[in-house]
């Protein structure tokens, strides 16, 4: 048995291979949940009745008129629930609410022979509402003292005293917007009672086990009565970690009550208005630097907008608080956190899980303070990077902190920053109406679920008598390439060609009690479990081979489907032949694998411990060009150096880095959730509830030159084949674009002025910032959001 991180000679991991479903994707033959309905008969379709109030009591609900609509089969209401009327894990999300908590909240669901019938039926349901006062913005909620859940504190040292002693001290406020996941595949569930009497749930879910548990508790069944399968998702990004459960439960309830398959697929409008999003955050901060610009103290209060229920808001807040340091050493820290309760959709997991919001507070702060310190922002950042031996504010040593400075240096060289800075200066001098700028920002991101118990995984690996291999594991595929990597892990571990390993769909009856595929941990956890299962089988096969080759089992080598002894190759046993022998010697050819991440502990009350197995590191340099007439901008070039350990699958990892980066750019610059905050009749309605009003990055938001380099010789000990997680950390590389925009705006104004830009920094936001820079003013005096120097 080798260590988890050791790679054998010529491993299949590390090879550049396409996504395991790429052929199916490209030919339109990859199936997603809603593609299954044409394979079934008598399918019923579900449509919600959505409340037109931000906050109201449901005084009466009359379903009779709906039942008069041709094709309507049933209206599902709270009275139909045999188990628990609850769609969440915190028991604050009734599946059928009596109190409407946000505009569009579904109060009941109509089942129809066709989608059109269900829609018309929903329109016919009569609901009497008693409107109640509502809170929509973070400002409103903070003013009203509307909070939910715990209010933790992370602290180290003496923040107040250090602030008082600091050579330079600034304070300010910051607010960033939320983000809609906008997975191209909306939420979809398809449920029937199968030939064995079990409730079979096809669901686009990142967390099949939790979907199973909630379907079971709604139906009043045991978990073993419900099987959830996720073939693949058309994107997840965290939006399918908690959100699918209630929709699956509705479909399951309908199926159990009617005896027919029920399809619940949200259209885009329904998906955006019903499901959770990234948390907007508000921050108030007080920071102190020494005379050289080194951070001395930070005091901050983070307030997230949790929407109407708790959902994952507490762990999201915890991760934000654990990432406000980003990559910087701050000796004295006091960060307080709280979750506001508002009459909006639930806010939930989204790639980065609060980390981006916490880190953004710090990067915004540094971008605003650098001119006031008389420092180049890049230099201010470099000067404050963690050094080996230093620990985070919550007490975790930053192992491999030297990688930050190494990556920083490599990136400056690769991106040719010095020469380009000169070009930019010349360009700007020659162009009064157009300005360019570049900026460099770092990323440090902790990997593991903050909740230690989630850091475990299972797998089930079968070797058939012909030598073919079938693997199951608890992780779900949402495009991130987990299944591709797991095939590579299995092929490496068993020493067989990749083509002999097939992967079966994720199902709760194959691997139970799984964690969500989230927190970037899918490959670490499931890879450990797959490898463990494969090694059990390989160990047994080595016994068989050792006997045949007349050598010690430890000296048997498995590679490319050929089994030999160490150091000699005159006797070669084909893998299928060895498997055949093993079968006849009655050696089990399958194994259940298990993995738990070692070395984690976390005290969530004190917010101290070592919650992360390791940190991912990276940095990006981005160059932008801003049109002074309009505030419109282009991304000219981005260079990235990112640490994925020793990559399990380079094509996949580069894809995750690029995709995460562009998604981060979308959040920071383009994507804007606009709610009706007026006192009109549509108060609380999401105005941007479609692709035509909520704009995702398109080709025009891709950097025109885009270079991604994987940090080399980066073996991560204690992780499967020396790799590192990659799903979330690259999203925060997008800070470089935001900071480049800030620098380009500054170039329109007086040198050394602090520039504030909103988040998202849309062209309109940039235009007003340019106007302010041109006016030569820092923010107007008395503005709450302006950094105020007190030295």
């Amino acid at each position: 048995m080798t260590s988890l991180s050791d790679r054998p000679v010529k491993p299949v991991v590390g090879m550049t291979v396409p996504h395991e479903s790429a052929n199916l994707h490209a030919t339109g033959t990859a199936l997603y949940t809603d593609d299954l309905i044409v394979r079934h008969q008598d399918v019923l379709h579900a449509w919600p009745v959505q409340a037109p109030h931000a906050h109201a009591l449901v005084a009466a609900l009359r379903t009779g008129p709906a039942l008069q609509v041709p094709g309507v089969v049933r209206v599902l209401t709270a009275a139909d629930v045999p188990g628990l009327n609850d769609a969440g894990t915190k028991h604050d999300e009734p599946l059928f609410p009596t109190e409407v908590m946000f505009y569009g909240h579904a109060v009941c669901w109509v089942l129809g022979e066709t989608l059109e019938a269900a829609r018309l039926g929903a329109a016919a349901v009569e609901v009497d509402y008693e409107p109640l006062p509502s809170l929509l913005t973070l400002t409103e909620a903070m003013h009203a003292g509307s909070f939910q859940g715990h209010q933790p504190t992370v602290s180290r040292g003496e923040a107040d005293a250090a602030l008082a002693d600091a050579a330079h001290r600034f304070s300010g406020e910051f607010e960033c917007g939320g983000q809609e996941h906008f997975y191209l595949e909306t939420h979809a569930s398809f449920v029937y009672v199968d030939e064995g009497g079990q409730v079979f749930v096809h669901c686009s879910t990142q967390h099949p086990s939790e979907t199973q548990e909630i379907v079971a508790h709604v139906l009043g069944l045991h978990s073993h009565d419900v099987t959830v399968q996720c073939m693949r998702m058309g994107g997840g990004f965290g939006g399918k970690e908690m959100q699918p459960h209630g929709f699956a439960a509705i479909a399951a309830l309908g199926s159990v009550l009617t005896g027919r398959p029920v399809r619940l697929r949200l259209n885009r409008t329904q998906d955006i208005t019903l499901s959770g999003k990234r948390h907007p955050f508000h921050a108030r901060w007080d920071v102190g630097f020494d005379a050289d610009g080194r951070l001395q103290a930070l005091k901050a209060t983070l307030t997230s907008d949790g929407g109407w229920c708790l959902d994952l808001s507490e762990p999201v807040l915890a991760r934000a608080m654990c990432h406000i340091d980003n990559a910087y050493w701050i000796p004295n820290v006091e960060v307080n956190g709280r979750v506001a309760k508002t009459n909006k959709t639930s806010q939930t997991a989204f790639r980065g899980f609060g980390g981006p919001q916490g880190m953004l507070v710090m990067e915004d702060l540094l971008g605003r303070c650098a001119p006031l310190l008389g420092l180049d922002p890049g230099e201010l950042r470099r000067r404050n990077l963690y050094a080996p031996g230093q620990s985070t504010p919550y007490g975790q040593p930053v192992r491999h902190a030297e990688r930050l400075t190494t990556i920083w240096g490599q990136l400056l060289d690769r991106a040719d920053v010095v020469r380009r800075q000169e070009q930019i200066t010349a360009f700007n001098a020659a162009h009064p109406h157009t300005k360019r700028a570049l900026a460099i920002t770092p990323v440090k991101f902790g990997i593991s679920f903050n909740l230690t118990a989630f850091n475990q995984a299972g797998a089930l690996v079968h070797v058939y008598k012909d030598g073919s291999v079938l693997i199951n594991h608890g992780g779900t595929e949402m495009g991130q390439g987990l299944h591709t990597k797991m095939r590579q892990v299995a092929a490496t571990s068993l020493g067989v060609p990749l083509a002999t390993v097939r992967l079966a769909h994720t199902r709760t009856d194959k691997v139970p009690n799984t964690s969500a595929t989230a927190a970037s941990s899918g490959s670490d956890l499931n890879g450990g479990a797959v490898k463990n299962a494969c090694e059990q089988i390989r160990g047994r096969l080595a016994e068989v081979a050792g006997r045949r080759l007349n050598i010690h089992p430890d000296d048997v080598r498995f590679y490319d489907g050929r089994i030999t002894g160490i150091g000699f190759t005159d006797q070669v046993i084909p893998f299928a032949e060895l498997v055949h022998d093993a079968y006849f010697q009655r050696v089990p050819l399958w194994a259940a694998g298990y993995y738990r991440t070692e070395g984690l502990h976390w005290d969530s009350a004190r917010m101290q411990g070592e919650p992360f197995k390791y940190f991912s590191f990276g940095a990006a340099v981005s160059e932008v060009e801003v049109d002074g007439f309009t505030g419109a901008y282009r991304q000219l070039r981005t260079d990235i150096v990112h640490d994925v350990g020793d990559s399990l699958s380079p094509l996949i990892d580069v894809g995750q880095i690029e995709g995460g980066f562009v998604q981060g750019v979308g959040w920071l610059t383009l994507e804007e959730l606009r709610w009706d905050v007026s006192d009109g009749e549509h108060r609380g309605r999401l105005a941007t509830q479609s692709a035509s009003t909520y704009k995702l990055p398109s080709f025009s938001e891709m950097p025109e030159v885009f270079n991604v380099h994987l940090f080399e010789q980066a073996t991560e000990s204690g992780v499967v084949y020396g790799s590192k997680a990659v799903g979330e950390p690259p999203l925060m590389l997008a800070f470089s674009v935001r900071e480049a925009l800030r620098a380009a705006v500054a170039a329109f104004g007086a040198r050394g002025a602090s520039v504030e830009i909103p988040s998202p920094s849309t062209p309109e936001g940039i235009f007003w910032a340019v106007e302010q820079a041109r006016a030569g003013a820092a923010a107007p005096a008395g503005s709450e959001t302006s950094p105020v120097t007190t030295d």
Partner: protein
Amino acid sequence: MDSIAVTVNGRKRGCDGVSPHVRLLDWLRAEGLTGAKEGCAEGECGACAVLVARPDGPDRSRWTSVNACLPSAVAFDGQEIITAEGLGTAPGPCTEQDLHPVQREMVDRGGSQCGYCTPGFVCAMAAEYYRPGRSAVPGDTGQPGTAENRTADGGAGLDAGHACGPNGFDLHALSGNLCRCTGYRPIRDAAYALEAPADTDPLLQRQDAPAPPARHTRASVDGAEFVRPQTMEELFDRLARDPEAVLVTGATDLGVDVNLKHARPRLVLAVDQLDHLRALTLGADAVEIGAALTLTEVEDRLAGRVPLLDQFFPQFASRLIRNAASFGGNLATGSPIGDAAPALLALNAAVILASADGEREVPLDEFFTGYRQSVRKPGEVLRSVRIPLPLAEQTAFHKISKRRFDDISSVAVGVAIQLDGGTVSAVRIGLGGVAATPIRARATEDALTGQPWTHEVAAAAAAIMATEGTPIDDLRASARYRSAMLEQLLLKFYAQTQSDSAVEVPR
């Protein structure tokens, strides 16, 4: 009545009894062809894109990418469609050898992650792959220009110009496709790696034959009717009998209403294949553009003849939409944020309205009467758009939006200015997004006319332009920003007219 049928991937599939309200996408999926996906149901994401054989002159056809989520299935009666499933040679799990070249490049370069948008990307990419005239650019490396020569200080480089790969692949072919996973770089690389199709490629060969002729389709299901009249007389006759009938060309507006607002029109009259509405004539004193020509067809056939429209086309929605949408539709819906009107107002265009009683010409600035209302009477059909010649010397079309590709205007400005020895002899400015209808900036025009074209005059006029219209706050922009943009865009236009003599050249 003839049977309604659509040929999909070479197989004819009956479409009788399908409601006219059923979109092509839903019908394809119900037929088991689930490759095309619904991502947004409003023509914004392209996950539903398919190929349709459209006329390319009388003797040839062209594989044209369109969104399947917007048009009715029955609108494709008699037509030939290819979906992602039909591009490769094998259904179901297939090997590398079975993949279409577009599919193979997407697979090898990591162009798919979750894969949900991929079938649509593959179709949009295939249309560009087969585009006649797409050819390698000698010496082009596919990299964008060097930073030094990328932009003009007027900011023209920020506008959505065409970007082509070394193989002549126009990236705007993919401007209507959204991917939430990849960040697009591998998709661009796949597109730019495509070679010319093999001579033996059956889809290439198909383009050498005419597109299927228009069929006299009539579908009537559950009180909803779809009719494709064969002649203007038949069209006028149906309109006379049913003045509430909805006219469609590409259904890029109606389809959104059907999907998102659940509009269920009782009678739809498809006019997109009526020859009388599909003429484009380049006369001595006017360019006349058939109202039912798609914007892509107009773009191709004008071939740069109207420089303002050359700036306008790449900023109008996406290629997928331009392959379906028409000037007639964009003007007739009368949206205050439709982009065609501000461009055409600047060009002093008129519309020709045809009815059973004959034709009349209405200047475009007299066409709109209120929010989504016009002088078009019941029974009248918008036949063509007439742009008088000669064109003004200096023209521009500027659009303010959050996203450079495929977005809806916060503000759109068309400007056409004639200079006579440095003096403004004539000027027309069309504005979108600042009033209940598209409008002309008449006060600004007055302030410029007869004045020297100097910075002082332009700045004074720009300040007046900021007061034109009655812009509102909405989800796209604040009223304040819209007004500021009116001012800024005139200043930007002025700067661009001055930069012609400067060293910077727009890419």
